[in-house]
């Protein structure tokens, strides 16, 4: 069994949503509320869920952009984010918006060279430029474009620049925060293939945050499904897509469009909206929208059950992984 490169234990990130007159917190937004997972060396863990469920916050808290409210992150057994131990040399991040993630006032060469400057990893200017050109080549851009500014590039190219910047100081893990959701479909495939190629060549480990389930299936070995700040199901990609255990996972998977006009697969329509993370429902967080919810779901919060190699948090799944609710 491969070793765990990254372990996240009971990670919580709460934001103060409202303060009273005296500056004391009045309402707390529990964006991430007790998330645990681990990522093995060289694998890709997909993190999926609908908008506002805390996927991006999880990624940002893992890398240390947000101070975790509670919980720990271990890299290779070593605790991160304690007393300002910023994880920048081990973990890097690729951002969602290719138009916002590059400083419009810096040339591409300076953007990619900045991590090199900060970490003093070169001895001469030539060495720095050589590394920048190498990185540009690596992500499939022309080194001659190093003196250009970000606005002269297309979305896909900008995302490649973001990838090159993340790779500059040889990180072990890259957190991909919806790296493709802002791109055209044809460009999405290019970027995802580039990420896979880099993973093979450089032995990278990815935490791949997305809401495109088809793309997650393509790139990840394991998938974690998040709902309202918690992971509801975590399993190997094949298992999860073959036999989703949690009702929420089922609903998500039924929403993937199938390119077959004769396909009469029934979609599971979830009722209502995502409840507010300021005031999550009692019991199972999914109970307000779950078509199979029973009394126990509204009273007791389900614990994470480990069933073989997979994990699921649902009262209606027994310890052998059998679903105790009727399937359509």
């Amino acid at each position, binding site marked *: 069994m491969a070793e765990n490169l990254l372990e996240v234990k009971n990670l919580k990130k709460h934001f103060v949503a409202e303060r009273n007159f005296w500056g004391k917190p009045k309402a707390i937004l529990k964006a991430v509320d007790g998330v645990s997972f681990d990522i093995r060396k060289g694998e890709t863990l997909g993190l999926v869920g609908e908008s506002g469920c805390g996927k991006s916050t999880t990624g940002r808290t893992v890398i240390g952009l947000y101070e975790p409210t509670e919980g720990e992150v271990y890299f290779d057994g070593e605790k991160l984010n304690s007393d300002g131990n910023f994880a920048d040399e081990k973990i890097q991040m690729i951002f969602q918006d290719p138009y916002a993630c590059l400083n419009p006032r810096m040339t591409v060469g300076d953007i990619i060279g900045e991590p090199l400057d900060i970490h003093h990893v070169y001895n001469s200017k030539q060495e720095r430029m050589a590394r920048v050109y190498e990185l540009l080549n690596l992500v499939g851009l022309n080194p001659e474009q*190093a003196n250009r500014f970000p606005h002269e590039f297309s979305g896909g190219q900008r995302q490649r620049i973001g990838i090159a910047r993340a790779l500059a100081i040889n990180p072990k893990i890259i957190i991909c925060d919806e790296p493709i959701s802002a791109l055209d479909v044809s460009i999405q495939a290019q970027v995802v293939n580039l990420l896979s190629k880099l993973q093979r060549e450089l032995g990278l480990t990815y935490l791949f945050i997305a809401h495109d389930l088809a793309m997650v299936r393509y790139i990840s070995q394991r998938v974690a499904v998040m709902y309202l700040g918690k992971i509801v199901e975590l399993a190997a990609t094949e298992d999860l897509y073959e036999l989703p255990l949690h009702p929420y996972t089922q609903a998500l998977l039924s929403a993937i469009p199938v390119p077959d006009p004769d396909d009469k697969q029934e979609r599971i329509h979830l009722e209502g909206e995502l409840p507010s993370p300021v005031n999550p429902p009692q019991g199972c967080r999914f109970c307000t929208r779950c078509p199979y919810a029973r009394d126990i779901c509204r009273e007791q919060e389900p614990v994470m059950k480990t069933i073989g190699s997979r994990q699921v948090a649902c009262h209606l799944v027994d310890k052998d992984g059998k679903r105790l609710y009727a399937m359509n």
Partner: protein
Amino acid sequence: MAELAKIDFEPLVRSAEHIQAENGEAALGYWQDAWIRLKRDKVAMLGLGTIIFLLIVAIFGPMLSSVSYADQTLAAANQGPSAAHWFGTDNLGRDLFIRVLYGARISLSIGIVASLLNFLIGVTYGGIAGFMGGRVDRIMMNIVDVLYSIPVLLYVILLMVVLKPGLTNIFIALGIGYWLQMARIVRGQILSMKEQEFVLAARTIGASRRRILIKHLIPNAIGAIVVTLSLCIPDAIFTEAFLSFIGLGVSAPMASWGVLASEGVTSLKAYPFQLFFPAIAISVTMLAFNFLSDGLRDVLDPKMRR
């Protein structure tokens, strides 16, 4: 058919220097692009041309003249404009043309120094407040709000009373009074930018706060800063003119435009040209700076770009 050797199929090795040499014609930078678009704005270019003309005349004009701004020729007092005295003379027979040129020196240097102080204090203060956020921001901006509620002119006047009139003290008074607007604008810009992904990206690669502020945030706020500065210059010039007019500005025999206008008013009925020329100089300068700052705002506003 030519013989092909194996070496013909070797990939060309492109060294870093090689690529750098090819990169000679770099893409248009931000400022080059802004300059090209500013050149299309006729009114702004007129303003810029006038300002450059005024600067040259203010620096070199008095040097080329044989008479000084303080030379009195009582026999030639209160003469109207003529070939010898283009703008006429004042009640002590001093050449008004030279005095207006000399006044330009004082007025323009006040404008420039005030805007420099404005830049240094306002950008630092606003930058720190916006970047730190939270309680620091609240306290710092509350101080600004309190100061802002006092009319600038009022406490510039009060300061001048305490500090005694003089050029250095005008600099100090304007420096203290004029950075509030700048601090607010910079703080607002930084606040809106600091959660953007390129700033987060800078944090993830380990950039220090100082570096983020200087390399990422302030360069992206520079458009707003430049526009605020170019609006501050005419304001400072006008405030100085006003202070001199009410007798709190530079003291005789130094001549700022405000002093000249104030002297001209006393003999307005008999010799209107004594007020006319300094007033024209003030108006033209204000207009030129306002034209330029309007143009700069259009050119540097990131929302207006393409």
